């Protein structure tokens, strides 16, 4: 199995070379994306088959001397390989059609397979060097993809912020592995598993891994690159970055904390729970205020990463308290949600790309009425909106339901920190789910329903066949994974077994495919049956009403209380739709203010209405940090133009200082 995965990496690299060579040729699109589609399917199959198998290893005589390249495919990597295969196959299928009108394909084609190769290698790496090499390859190739449309304003700055955050992430992961390896320098993961660092070092490694993986995944306050980079990248790349790459970061966190460290103390769980809960809430509140469709989706990714980390935090808490069954449930919920997020977020980014292509804008205030003009795209996006809003019977609900079951599992944990943070996270999660529903009512209702607000939206056309196929496929998968949650839960059993020493009860053998996380008397959920009930009762009701009641239908202008206004500008906008929520939550979360300047009677100047919002994290952390760097570099600037004698003097002084330090140390 691992040989297949390894040859897939090789094939990705070949496709990258082919992409560079083919450049502008129209065949390049078919060869590169078609190839990536096939390799993605192979990776999906490999992950699916290898997940229940024992771990496989391979060592290559490459890389750093005496270390080499160690690769390993175990249950955890297999699951993420499956997720990566699925996401990349979908994105490639979408791209075959979507990139037909790409003006500069040579800016995307070479880096796209390289990005996929980097992500695959991260999953296979079994030593710190290959892991970090793959991690940086993933970051750099995706940076090149973010820069693909570099002439549009703002994109270069977005890519710069992305690169800075990627550097930070790489640096913290490097330090985490450095501390894990210890003074003897065992850089193979096996040596790290065997080493048991002291409590202080464990804390340090945990903090570094959380910061390193968290900045790649988009945990608050390290999420700032997502809303900048996702809109800048081409849509199929946004889908990959949001749907797959953030999951690779989650994989990095699980690999280091659950596998290499073998768990973390309970206080670490409270930190993960707190960060996850805050991330979920801040992400969705930002998404509710956005009018750029892709920025909105980026913030919603932040929210979902928060939900995944809440699950991981619960798993850590239960693991630290020696409760493997609970840890298995929480971990399964988190990984299930990660898979679900890949499905519905890729779907929604495809939809955003199709809309961008059809109308030329991502601004929901300039859209409207797309349900009639792009029926297939809109229907698929609607399914994605249902799924991401955690509504039954879709997949998002199944994983959030499991997370709630994990929260309820054991209230009598001994530590006070957990006693308070677990119910608080339950509240945050419930709030985030409700706000996500509000957010996607707004996004779909303003963007796709109503009357077209601009001529561009009125003349929108349906997306091409390839794109529609990708969207329809993912919409179908969202429904299927929602209707049969037991299949995914059973798939995850070996992963949970390997990481926390227990697995959830087997689901699919049970009668009627009911999901029972702990015991039937405790909770159960049968999505398929409920779906059939809803469909059946709705269908029967419709048939009966039409048979015995009236079946007539007459079209007329909208009623609108007798005063319909023909101008589409009188419709509710995204801003007005979000105004009540902004008023309730915004004052606290963003210091949102509405300022109305009403001129006195007789004054002829125009009245104005200004809305101000403060992004506390950007203004409070990143802006001061940038100013500090500018300040320091301004003062250090004098060092740039010294004579050679002075430089030599500095070197000499530094040498003396180091020797003195060494003398004091001994």
């Amino acid at each position: 199995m691992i040989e297949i995965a390894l040859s897939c990496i090789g094939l990705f690299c070949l496709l990258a070379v082919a992409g560079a060579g083919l450049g502008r040729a129209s065949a390049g699109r078919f060869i590169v994306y078609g190839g990536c589609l096939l390799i993605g399917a192979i990776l999906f199959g490999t992950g699916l088959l290898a997940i229940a198998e024992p771990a496989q290893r391979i060592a290559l005589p490459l890389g750093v001397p005496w270390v080499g390249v160690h690769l390993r495919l175990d249950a955890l990597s297999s699951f993420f390989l499956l997720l990566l295969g699925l996401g990349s196959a979908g994105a490639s299928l979408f791209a075959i059609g979507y990139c037909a009108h790409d003006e500069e394909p040579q800016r995307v084609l070479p880096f796209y397979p390289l990005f996929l190769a980097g992500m695959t290698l991260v999953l296979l790496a079994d030593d710190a060097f290959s892991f970090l090499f793959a991690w940086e390859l993933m970051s750099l190739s995706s940076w090149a993809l973010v820069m693909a449309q570099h002439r549009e304003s703002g994109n270069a700055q977005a890519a710069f912020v992305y690169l800075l955050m990627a550097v930070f992430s790489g640096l913290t992961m490097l330090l985490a592995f450095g501390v894990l390896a210890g003074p003897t320098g065992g850089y193979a993961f096996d040596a790290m598993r065997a080493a048991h660092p002291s409590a202080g070092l464990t804390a340090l490694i945990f903090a570094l891994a959380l910061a390193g993986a968290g900045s790649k995944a988009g945990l608050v306050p390290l999420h700032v690159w997502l809303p900048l980079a996702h809109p800048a990248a081409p849509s199929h790349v946004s889908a990959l970055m949001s749907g797959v790459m953030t999951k690779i970061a989650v994989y990095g966190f699980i690999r280091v904390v659950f596998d290499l460290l073998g768990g973390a103390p309970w206080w670490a769980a409270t930190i993960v729970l707190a960060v996850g809960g805050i991330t979920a809430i801040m992400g969705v509140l930002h998404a509710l205020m956005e009018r750029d469709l892709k920025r909105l989706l980026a913030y919603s990714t932040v929210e979902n990463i928060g939900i995944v980390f809440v699950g991981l935090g619960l798993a850590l808490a239960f693991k630290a308290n020696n409760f493997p069954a609970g840890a298995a449930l929480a971990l399964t919920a988190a990984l299930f949600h990660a898979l679900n997020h890949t499905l519905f977020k890729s779907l929604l980014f495809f939809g955003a790309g199709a809309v961008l292509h059809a109308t030329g804008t991502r601004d929901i205030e300039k859209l409207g009425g797309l349900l009639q003009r792009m029926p297939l795209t809109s229907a698929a996006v609607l399914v994605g909106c249902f799924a991401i809003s955690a509504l039954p019977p879709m997949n998002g609900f199944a994983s959030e339901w499991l997370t709630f079951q994990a929260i309820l599992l054991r209230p009598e944990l001994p530590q006070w920190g957990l006693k308070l943070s677990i119910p608080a996270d339950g509240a945050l999660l419930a709030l985030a789910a409700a706000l996500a529903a509000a957010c996607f009512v707004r996004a779909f209702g303003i963007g796709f329903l109503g009357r077209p607000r601009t001529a561009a939206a009125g003349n929108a056309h349906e997306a091409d066949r390839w794109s529609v196929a990708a969207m329809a496929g993912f919409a179908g998968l969202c429904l299927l994974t929602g209707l049969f949650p037991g299949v995914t839960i059973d798939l995850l059993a070996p992963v949970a077994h390997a990481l926390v020493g227990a697995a959830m009860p087997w689901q699919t053998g049970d009668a009627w495919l009911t999901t029972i996380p702990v015991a039937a008397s405790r909770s159960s959920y049968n999505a398929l049956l409920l779906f059939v009930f809803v469909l059946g009762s709705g269908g029967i009701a419709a048939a009966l009403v039409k048979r015995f009641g009236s079946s007539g239908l007459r079209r007329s202008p909208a009623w609108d209380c007798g005063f319909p206004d023909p101008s589409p500008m009188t419709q509710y906008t995204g801003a007005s739709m979000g105004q009540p929520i902004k008023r309730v939550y915004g004052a606290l979360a963003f210091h949102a203010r509405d300022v109305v300047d009403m001129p006195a009677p007789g004054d002829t100047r125009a009245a104005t209405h200004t809305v101000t919002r403060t992004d506390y994290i950007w203004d409070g952390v990143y802006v001061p940090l940038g100013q500090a760097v500018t300040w320091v570099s301004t003062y250090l600037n004098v060092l740039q133009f010294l004579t050679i004698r002075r430089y030599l003097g500095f070197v000499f002084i530094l040498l003396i200082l180091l020797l003195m330090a060494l003398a004091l140390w001994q």
Partner: protein
Amino acid sequence: MAVIVSLLVQFAQMLLVLALAPLLTGVVRKVKARFQRRIGASVFQPYRDLRRLMGKDVVLADNASWLFRVAPYTIFACTWVAAALVPTFATGLMFSWSGDLIVIAGLLGTARFVQALAALDIGTSFGGIGASREVMIASLAEPAMILIVLSVALIAGSTQLSVVADHMLNGQVGLRVSLALALVALTIVALAENARIPVDNPATHLELTMVHEAMVLEYSGRHLAMIELGVALKLLLYISMIACIFAPIGLAGANAGIGAFLIGGAAYVAKLAVGAVALGTFETSIAKMRVFRLPNFVGAALMLSLLGVLLLFVSRGM
């Protein structure tokens, strides 16, 4: 044979909630009318309204999409299935395990999602105002509901409503602070979710504070009938839920005989009548709130339910 009987009981429950829902609405209206010293319409008036609406043709806006036409049936079906999952006269019915309390909340969330989207479909400002306010209220009421579920589940050790009702009926639950908090919170959530005073006024159209009526303004004929029936079912669902958790007296067991079912049915009708009179009294005695005072009211439910859950995490005996 046993399977057929339990299947019949399950269907009896589904038909019972459907048959009683308009009557419940009629009784609430009658109570309110009597308090206002009016005679009021007959308690059976909602049935006549439904029959009249079902018989009328639909007048559809020119630009209405398929979503607008599918929505009434979806809303009705989701609410009906959710209402059928709540034990009314007996616990442990055949399909009661297909969804727990969180699923019931989720199904109602699906119905609301579809309702809000349908309101935005025509592109009129009334639909928008209703939808935006609805999601604002739901963003507070829905997490409160989930937290109430959590506190009830922590006490009963299950999120399954049948098991919860059995536990409340037979277990030594006693008086608990957390249950009292949950009851107050659930009452507020029920008022908000059913668009009752003080959150919304079900008796008026064309008032600037309206929420639900603004969303369904463009509906007519059989579509409106399905939505009205869904509204009645939702009210019945919440009263049944409160009765089932906090007053499970008279509920028949899973495989009880016909006598126990009859007693359970009589107790259920009595509970509904009490609920209807209480709701009518409450609605008459309080004024409608301004829209932006609502977050305080519904937020109180959120805070109370959170307090209940925290108390239970701190001590199981609270």
